[in-house]
């Protein structure tokens, strides 16, 4: 972290380059670009969403112990005599605040015990001993200060001396409680259709399942020669709780690199098509596509259908032109199209809108890993970047976590769970599903933590 301040100016430049890269990577075939303005209707909009506030979680008390405090003036000896006379076992005193923890008598329920104690005029307070639990917070050093996308505590994000965006507390994907439910299953593999992955990066070295496939150079080594793919893969599945760098969304899920974009950030549909089919045939359960083109192409659609039919969840960036959703994100039946939100849950201005947008995730100044050669000597191999390229891997990570705990769900069901559990963060302006952020910014907690059925 010592070099972090020094490098922020450079990070800004790199981030800007990455944002541009996202744009470039979308320009696969500009000559085939079709206008879809006529399709930008709201005919598929869901009924207005009704947000109701859920009741707070019910605290869980221990049934075999209670906490007691005696009134001022009751000596510790008297207090213990009273407790012993009541046959309360295993008395433990917390002396500084005059509280006793006592065992519930064998013949009494918790409620009866509390009633008995409260009936004693010397007792000031008798209450349940509520259970506590730890929240899973990773020990990755950049997590607390820089990964607002996973846990946003407000303040400002120190991207560089010139870039200090304001953070809105709670404008995150609610990862902490979700990680209590699952950290992912190593059997769930996320394939990344991108520029490859730096397989020697400390965040990914133990995460890649193989050297993948390079459809650009025609070999079996999908090493990243650009940095974009490493950044995207790290956001979804960086090694987490390893005391290094950042936390990923899906801690334990694995990475399958598939190189379909060249070192300059360009590629062709045929490479993407081949990559989708190869990944589907080689164990991927989720495919992240932080790339795309402007043309609707039946072969690309067929490749998406192929993957979908093989029970693979497809997640794609909506695009960064701010005009219309790119392909394959626009294939509504098979692909989750992901828009980008900012540090305060606002719709990112570059994020392409359209009726095909399903959900959104943070995509502005998201910290991710890059190859060391890209960061340069003396700098840590991480950068801040913006784009729907960063938003998509959050959703791919969530899909992988869902598949880790519910492997029987179909891709359509996984897509629906992610859609329906999203937070409609722009409901004040656009209630319900809209073209900017779809159903809303994803909410991992609502998608993964059991919903409490209350009276």
């Amino acid at each position, binding site marked *: 972290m010592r070099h972090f301040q020094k490098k922020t100016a450079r990070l800004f430049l790199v981030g800007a380059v990455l944002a541009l890269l996202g744009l470039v990577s979308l320009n696969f075939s500009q000559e085939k670009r079709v206008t879809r303005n006529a399709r930008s209707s709201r005919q598929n909009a869901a009924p207005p*969403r009704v947000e109701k506030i859920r009741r707070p979680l019910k605290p869980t008390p221990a049934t075999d112990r209670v906490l007691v405090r005696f009134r001022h003036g009751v000596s510790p000896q008297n207090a213990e005599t009273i407790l012993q006379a009541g046959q309360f076992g295993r008395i433990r005193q917390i002396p500084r605040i005059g509280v006793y923890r006592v065992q519930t008598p064998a013949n009494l329920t918790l409620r009866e015990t509390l009633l008995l104690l409260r009936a004693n005029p010397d007792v000031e307070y008798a209450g349940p001993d509520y259970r506590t639990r730890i929240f899973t917070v990773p020990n990755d050093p950049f997590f607390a200060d820089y990964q607002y996308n996973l846990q946003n505590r407000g303040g400002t994000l120190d991207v560089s001396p010139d870039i200090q965006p304001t953070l809105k507390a709670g404008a995150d994907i609610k990862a902490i409680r979700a990680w209590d439910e699952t950290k992912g299953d190593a059997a769930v593999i996320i394939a990344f259709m991108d520029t490859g992955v730096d397989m020697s990066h400390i965040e990914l070295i133990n995460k890649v399942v193989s050297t993948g496939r390079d459809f650009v150079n025609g070999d079996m080594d999908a090493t990243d020669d650009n940095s974009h793919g490493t950044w995207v893969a790290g956001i979804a599945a960086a090694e987490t709780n390893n005391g290094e760098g950042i936390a990923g969304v899906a801690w334990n899920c694995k990475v399958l690199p598939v190189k379909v974009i060249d070192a300059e950030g360009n590629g062709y549909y045929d490479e993407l098509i081949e990559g989708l089919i190869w990944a589907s045939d080689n164990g991927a359960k989720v495919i992240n596509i932080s790339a795309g083109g402007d043309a609707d192409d039946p072969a690309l659609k067929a490749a998406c259908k192929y993957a979908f039919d093989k029970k693979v969840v497809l997640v794609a960036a909506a695009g960064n032109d701010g005009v219309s959703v790119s392909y394959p994100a626009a294939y509504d039946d098979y692909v989750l199209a992901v828009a980008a939100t900012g540090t305060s849950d606002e719709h990112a201005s570059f994020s392409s809108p359209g009726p095909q947008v399903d959900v959104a995730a943070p995509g502005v100044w998201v910290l991710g890993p890059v190859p060391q050669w890209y960061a340069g000597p003396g700098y840590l191999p991480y950068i801040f970047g913006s784009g729907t390229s960063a938003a998509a891997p959050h959703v791919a990570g969530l899909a992988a976590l869902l598949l880790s705990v*519910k492997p029987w769900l179909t891709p359509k069901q996984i897509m629906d769970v992610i859609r*329906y559990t999203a937070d409609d963060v722009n409901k004040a302006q656009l209630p319900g599903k809209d073209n900017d952020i779809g*159903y809303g910014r994803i909410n991992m907690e609502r998608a993964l933590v*059991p*919903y409490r059925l*209350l009276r």
Partner: protein
Amino acid sequence: MRKRTRGVFSAVALTLAFGLAGLPALQASESESAFRTGISFDRLSRTVTWDGATVPSKVKADSFTARETILIKPGLAVELIAGLSLSNFNGLVFRNLPVSLDYEAGATAGLLLGCGLRARLLGSGDFEIEGVGRFVYSLGFKKTWPLQGFAVEGDSQGRPNWLVASLGPRISYRFFGSFVPYATISASFFSGSFAMDQTLGDLTGHETKKLKSKSFLEVALGADYRVGKRWTLRAEAGFLPYSGGVDGSASVGLLYRF
């Protein structure tokens, strides 16, 4: 545990069978009427393990029932039971639905139906030994809970069912006349399920959780207290030990004999 349960049931069934074989030779120790009608409040608490759960949890149920006892012949009576139950399955988690559910909705109502058999086996002095069997089934009413806070509307519908079957000897002490204390040792089988359906937008799911009881043997202590010629008060408390704890049951009732 299954083998042990089967063993307990077999022993009790054998005892009952031998006892019933000798039934005609026995004399009724008291004048019995052909019909007895009563009401009863029962509470049970059973430690159970659910499908897929590693930690045991409690199922609690209260029931309000009407009971009709019919004397088939001296020393042999059947009992018909009908009423309502309130069953609490709090803490049950459904993880096989598209959106997992943590049931914390408290008691749900149900229709309770059952039957019982009581047969006098032995009588000696002030002591009397009967064989007592009972089967009770609670059919839960379907209940709907809206799912709130999601992008689309949805709800979940749940229905819990459970049954208790018990069989064992009861020894009564008739020395005190109108006050008759008794003790029962019975094999007690408790089973149940909770079916949950979920609809959320295009998502639908169904999950049925089945439970296994941790306790299989019940020791109950109770007493009948005759008030006047026709009314009898009954109170009973049961204990069901299992490895790691004790479950309980309680019952109070009022009977009228015709």
